[in-house]
């Protein structure tokens, strides 16, 4: 099953290119790199200047899928342990290409 914007919530996010596009903390907006690890509330992003741990709930992220599609997702939808997220559903209003 290919990763699509619909099943982004349920798919494996570790290893995907990611960018913080919106957020309450301006110093975090613009962080970009690869997702290296994930906890219930944060992403660990490997950037050129090192690893940054970024909270999910206060930020919006842009993921780049393998076909070149970019999907923007509100971070609060992704709040969950990685092994639990597989059962979560994401409403259509929460993501856009």
């Amino acid at each position: 099953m290919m990763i699509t914007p619909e099943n982004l919530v349920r798919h494996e996010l570790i290893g995907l290119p990611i960018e913080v596009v919106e957020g309450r903390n301006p110093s975090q907006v613009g962080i970009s790199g690869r997702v290296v690890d994930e906890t219930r509330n944060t992403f660990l992003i490997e950037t050129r200047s090192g690893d940054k741990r970024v909270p999910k709930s206060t930020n919006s992220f842009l993921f780049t899928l393998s076909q070149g599609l970019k999907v923007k997702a509100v971070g609060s939808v992704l709040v969950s342990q990685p092994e639990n997220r597989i059962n979560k559903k994401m409403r259509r209003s929460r993501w856009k290409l």
Partner: protein
Amino acid sequence: MSRRKKGYYRARELARERIERLFLLAEEEHLRRPERSDRYVSIARRMGMRMRVRIPRRLKRRVCKGCRCYLSPGRTRVRLRDGVVTVTCAECGEVMRYPYR
């Protein structure tokens, strides 16, 4: 089985794919950060347990049964003898034997 549970089967299929992908990432990351590989393995195992999905045999054998760390050439000793592969983990000393024909 009843078709009502179609969503359930799709989730398990997704779990299988994610487990494969995590092991792939573990292999890639191992050179630079072995502790990340261990973490990916633990996520994969937990997901398999939660979704009741079996980890494929060839992937299961890349994990130490004792300390659950990702086994790679740097931390593993593999010997063949009498039709048995003996894998020894360098981290915890666990010895795993797998027969082969």
